[in-house]
C-alpha cells in the first residue's frame, strides 16, 4: 500500500494513552485490535507512577457497512434464498427455459429491494410522526441514505433485466424502456391525481405540465383524460389532438404485425400529425401545438421541456418514443450520447450515470466495474454478476465472467464471515465458489467464537454437511479443552468421543485416572459405565472402562470374575505405569480372600509386576507425593506376604484338583 495513496482513509483514536505507542493486531476476519504498547519502566519508578495510573483501553476496529443496519440486513437473508434457488433452478432447467428462470429470479431480487424500500419508507414516516420523542437525526439520515441506495440499485437492476436478461421481445426495447421510465419517475402520476382533484383542473398551474409529462412518458390515455377536463374539450382542436393521441400505434412483439408493417403505419400516423400541424388545426392554442410538435418528434420542443424530465435517460427514451419506435440495443449507445449532449448544461454526470451508460453500450464488464465503484460493498455487484454469468454461460464465449463472479462471491462471503452473526450465510455462498470457497469455509469455521454448546453443535453440523472432518475434530477439541479447564471431565470425554479423537480422549482419560488417584473416587462414573463400543477409541479409555467394570463386579460380589479381569488388565499392560500401584492395592483384598480366587499363574504375574514396580521406583523416586503411591510403599511388604501366601494356597488348591 503506497503511503502517498490519496484514496487511503485515516481514522483517529481519541485516546491520549495511544499517543506514539499504538500497536495493532488483526484477528478473526477483518477485525483489528488496537492497544497502547507499554514501555519498559524500572520497578523503582512504579511506585511513583501508580498514583497517576490511568485505565488502559483496547479498541476493536471492525469494518462496517450500510448492509449491517437493521433494515438492510433483511436483504442479506432474503437474497441468499433467491441465490440458492437460482443455482438449483438453472442446473435443473432445460436450456430453452433458462431465460424464463433468470427473468423470474431477477424479478425476485427486484421485489426484495422494493420491499426493503417500502419498509424503510414506512419506518421513516413513522419516525417523522414521532419526532417529538427525540429520535436521533442520524437514524433519519441513515434511512434516507438507505432509500437512495436502494433506489439506485433497483434502477440499475431493472435496466439490466430488460437489456440483457429478458430477450423475449426479440430486441425491440422501446415498450420496456417506456415502462421502465414510467416506473421510476412517478411524479407525473402524483401530479395528475392532484390536478384532477382540484376544483377547476384547467386553471391549476401544473395542468399543462402534467399533460406534457404524461405525453413524454408515453401515457397517452392519461393525457387524454386530463385534456377532457378542459372546458373547451369538445372544440375542434381538442378533438383533433384527442384523435391523434388515440391513434398512436404501439409495437407489440406478438401482435401479428411485422416490423415493416408497423413502421409504415407509424410513419403514416406521424405524417398525419405533421399535416394537421401545418394546416393550423392547433393555431388557437400554443399548448396544443406544443403537444402536436412532440408527437411529430420535434427535438426542439422536447428539449424545451427538459425540466419535466430530470435525467438524460428520461430524455433519451422520450425522444426515441417519438422518433424511432423500432429502436434496438445497438442504437442505444448513440441515442444516449445524444441525450447527454443535449442535456449537458443542466446536470452533472454522476457515477450512476456511468453505470447506465455502460449498460446502454451493452458492455457487461463495464457495468460491473462501474457498479463496484458506486457501491461500497459487494452485495449488489455480486448478485448482478451472478445473474449475468448465468445469462451468458450457455453461450460459452466469455472468458472473464466466470472468474470474476467467483472472485466477487468470495469477497462478499469473506465480508459476511467476519460478521458475528452472518457467518452461516457466508458458508452458504462459499459452497458455490469452487475449491477456494471450500478452503475459505474451513478457515472461517475454525475461527468462529464458540459461545455455547448449541453454537458448537451448529458449527459441527455445518462442517459435517460439507465433510470437513478436520474442522469437526478441531471444534470438539476446543470444547473438550474448555471443559477440562472447568474441571468437567465427563463433558471433556464426551467431546473427545464425539469427534473420535483418540489423542485427546487418552489425555482426558489420564486426567481422570490421576484424579482418581488423588481423590479416591470416580467423577463421571455413569459415563464410564455406559461407554459401549466407543471404549475402543483409545487404549487408556478402554482401560478406564474396564477398570470401572472391575469396580462394579467387585461391588456386586463377583470376585472371581473381578480377579480375572484385574489380572488381565495388569498383564496386558493396558494400564499406564503410574496406575500399577493402585491395581496391586486393589488386588490385596482378593489375595487375602479365604478361597483362592487368583490362580498361581496369575500370582506369578502379580509378583512380576510388583518386582518391576519396586525396581523402577527405587531408580526414579519421583511420585512421592501421590497418595496412592505413598500408601503403596507402606503396603509393599503386606502385598509380598499376601502374594506368597496366595501362591502357596493356589498351588495346593490346583494340585488337589488334579488328583
Amino acid at each position, binding site marked *: 500500500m503506497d503511503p502517498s495513496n490519496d484514496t487511503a482513509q485515516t481514522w483517529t483514536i481519541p485516546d491520549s494513552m495511544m499517543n506514539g505507542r499504538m500497536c495493532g493486531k488483526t484477528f478473526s476476519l477483518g477485525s483489528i485490535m488496537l492497544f497502547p504498547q507499554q514501555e519498559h519502566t524500572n520497578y523503582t519508578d512504579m511506585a511513583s507512577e501508580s498514583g497517576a495510573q490511568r485505565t488502559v483501553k483496547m479498541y476493536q476496529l471492525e469494518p462496517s457497512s450500510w448492509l449491517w443496519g437493521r433494515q438492510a440486513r433483511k436483504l442479506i*437473508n432474503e437474497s441468499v434464498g433467491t441465490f440458492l434457488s437460482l443455482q438449483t433452478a438453472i442446473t435443473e432447467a432445460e436450456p430453452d427455459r433458462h431465460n424464463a428462470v433468470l427473468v423470474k429470479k431477477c424479478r425476485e431480487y427486484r421485489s426484495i429491494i422494493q420491499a426493503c424500500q417500502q419498509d424503510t419508507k414506512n419506518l421513516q414516516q413513522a419516525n417523522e410522526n414521532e419526532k417529538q420523542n427525540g429520535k436521533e437525526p442520524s437514524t433519519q439520515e441513515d434511512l434516507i441514505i438507505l432509500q437512495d441506495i436502494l433506489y439506485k440499485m433497483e434502477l440499475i437492476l431493472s435496466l439490466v433485466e430488460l437489456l440483457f436478461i429478458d430477450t423475449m421481445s426479440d430486441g425491440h426495447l422501446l415498450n420496456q424502456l417506456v415502462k421502465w421510465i414510467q416506473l421510476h419517475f412517478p411524479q407525473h402520476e402524483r401530479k395528475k391525481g392532484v390536478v384532477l382533484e382540484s376544483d377547476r383542473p384547467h386553471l391549476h398551474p401544473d395542468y399543462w405540465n402534467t399533460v406534457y409529462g404524461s405525453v413524454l412518458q408515453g401515457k397517452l390515455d392519461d393525457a387524454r383524460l386530463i385534456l377532457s377536463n378542459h372546458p373547451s374539450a369538445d372544440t375542434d382542436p381538442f378533438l383533433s389532438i384527442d384523435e391523434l393521441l388515440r391513434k398512436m400505434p404501439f409495437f407489440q412483439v406478438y401482435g401479428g404485425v411485422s416490423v415493416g408493417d408497423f413502421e409504415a403505419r407509424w410513419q403514416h400516423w406521424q405524417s398525419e400529425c405533421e399535416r394537421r400541424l401545418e394546416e393550423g388545426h392547433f393555431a388557437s392554442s400554443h399548448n396544443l401545438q406544443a403537444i402536436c410538435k412532440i408527437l411529430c418528434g420535434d427535438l426542439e420542443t422536447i428539449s424545451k421541456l427538459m425540466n419535466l424530465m430530470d435525467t438524460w435517460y428520461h430524455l433519451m427514451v422520450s425522444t426515441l418514443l417519438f422518433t424511432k419506435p423500432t429502436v434496438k440495443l445497438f442504437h442505444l449507445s448513440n441515442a444516449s450520447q445524444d441525450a447527454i449532449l443535449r442535456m449537458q448544461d443542466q446536470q452533472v454526470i454522476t457515477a450512476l450515470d456511468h453505470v447506465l451508460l455502460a449498460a446502454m453500450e451493452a458492455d457487461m464488464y463495464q457495468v460491473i466495474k462501474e457498479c463496484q465503484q458506486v457501491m461500497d460493498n459487494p452485495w449488489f455487484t455480486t448478485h448482478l454478476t451472478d445473474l449475468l454469468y448465468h445469462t451468458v454461460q450457455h453461450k460459452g464465449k466469455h472468458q472473464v465472467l466466470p472468474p470474476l463472479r467467483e472472485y466477487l462471491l468470495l469477497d462478499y462471503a469473506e465480508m459476511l464471515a467476519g460478521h458475528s452473526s452472518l457467518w452461516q450465510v457466508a458458508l452458504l455462498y462459499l459452497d458455490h465458489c469452487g475449491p477456494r470457497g471450500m478452503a475459505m469455509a474451513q478457515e472461517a469455521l475454525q475461527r468462529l467464537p464458540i459461545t455455547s454448546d448449541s453454537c458448537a453443535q451448529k458449527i459441527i453440523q455445518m462442517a459435517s454437511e460439507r465433510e470437513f472432518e478436520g474442522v469437526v475434530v478441531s471444534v470438539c477439541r476446543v470444547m473438550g479443552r474448555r471443559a477440562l479447564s472447568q474441571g*468437567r471431565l*465427563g463433558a471433556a470425554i464426551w467431546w473427545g468421543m464425539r469427534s473420535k479423537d483418540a489423542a485427546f480422549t487418552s489425555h482426558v482419560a489420564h486426567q481422570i485416572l490421576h484424579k482418581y488417584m488423588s481423590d479416591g473416587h470416580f467423577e463421571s462414573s*455413569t*459415563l464410564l459405565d455406559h461407554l459401549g463400543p466407543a471404549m475402543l477409541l483409545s487404549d487408556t479409555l478402554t482401560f478406564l472402562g474396564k477398570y470401572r467394570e472391575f469396580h462394579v463386579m467387585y461391588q456386586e460380589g463377583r470376585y472371581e470374575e473381578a480377579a480375572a479381569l484385574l489380572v488381565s488388565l495388569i498383564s496386558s499392560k493396558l494400564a499406564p505405569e503410574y496406575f500399577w500401584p493402585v491395581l496391586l492395592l486393589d488386588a490385596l483384598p482378593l489375595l487375602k480372600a479365604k478361597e483362592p480366587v487368583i490362580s498361581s499363574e496369575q500370582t506369578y504375574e502379580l509378583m512380576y509386576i510388583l518386582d518391576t514396580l519396586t525396581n523402577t521406583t527405587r531408580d526414579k523416586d519421583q511420585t512421592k507425593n501421590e497418595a496412592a503411591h505413598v500408601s503403596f510403599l507402606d503396603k509393599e511388604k503386606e502385598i509380598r506376604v499376601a502374594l506368597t501366601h496366595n501362591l502357596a494356597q493356589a498351588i495346593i488348591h490346583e494340585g488337589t484338583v488334579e488328583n
Partner: protein
Amino acid sequence: MAGSKLRRYVGQKVSVVRWRPPATHYGDTDTFLTGTWNDPENTVGVWRTPESDDDPVPISSLPHQGDVSDIQYVTRDSFMVGSSTGGVRLYRHSAEGDLEAVNCWDKVHAFTTGPAPCTSLACSGEQIASVGEDGKLVIINPNQKKPARVLEGVGGCSLYAVMFVRTHEVLTSSMQGHLKLWDLRASQTAKGLLFSPDQVAVCNLAGHPTQQHLVAAGGEDGTLALWDMRNTAHPFTIIAAHNGPVCQVQFHPVAPEHLFTCGMDGQLLHWDASASAKPSHLSYKGTQDLSGGSVTVWLGSEVSRGATDTTCILQSPLPINSLDVEGATLIAGSDNEAIYVLGQLLKKRIDDMVY
C-alpha cells in the same frame, strides 16, 4: 393438508418462538414472543398475527443480555426467559402491550470459571425448573429471590432439556444421552434412563399433553425416540428423523396424534399418526379426551413399524431453532433470520373436533 405459509425476515437470528396462551381453554391466540441469539443486541420481542393472511406485526421488544435460550410461560401474562449468561428473568405483559421485567435470578448456572448458559426451562404451577450447561437442575419459585433448590448432576455433563412429567417429577436429559427422572419430594434421582448406547446427546424433550407417561425425545444424531415411562428399560421406538441434531419436539396440545419436530438440517417435519388411531368409543360431543381411546396411538404397533404419515412442511437453508403450535397455526423461527407462520395445518382434524 394445504395451508397458508408466511415468512417474514426480521434481521436477527431467532432462537425461540412461543405462543402466548389463549385467554380461554379453547380460544385462539394471536400473540407470540420471539427471542434472538448471536447478535450484539439480542431482544425479546412481542408479535401479533393479524386476522388476514398478512405478515406478523411487531408490537414491542425489550433488549436482552446474552442469547435467549428458552422462553416459557408461567401464567397467561408472565413468562420466564433463560439466557446464555446463566441468568433467568421473569417478565410480564403490561396492559399497553409492552414488556416489563418483574424479577431476575442471575448466575443461576455457572461453571467454576465463569457463567454457564441456561439451556432450557419448564414450568408447572408455581415451580420453574431450569437446567444449564453446568449440569445443575435448579428449581425456582417466581415469588422468591433465591432459587428454591439446586440439584447437582454428576460428571459435569451439560443438561440440555427439562420437562415436568408430574407436578413433583422432573425429567432432564443430558449431553451423554441420559434421561433422569427426579422426584422433587425425595431429593434424589428416582430413575435413570439411557437414550441409546452411543452416547448421543438428547437435545429436546416433549411430553404428551394427556398421557403423562409418554415422552418424545430428539437426539443429536437426528433421531426421535418415544419413551414409555412405565417401562424404562429401553425406548419404545427410535425413528431416524433428521439429518442433523433435532432442535425441538412438540406434540399438538389439542390433537396429540400430531407431532412436530424441527432440526438443524433446516427441516420441519409433521408426524401424523392419526391414520392408525383407533376410533374412540366415547364419541359424544363435549368430551375432552380426544386422543382416541385409552391407548395412545404413539405406543401402538403401527408407529413402531414406522407407519406414520410424515411430511416436511418447511425447508430452510439454515437450522430451524424453534417451533410452537397452538390451534391450527404453527410458528417457527430459524437461523435464516426469518419467522414462519403456517396456518390451517390440521384443517380436517380441527373440523372434526366439536366443542
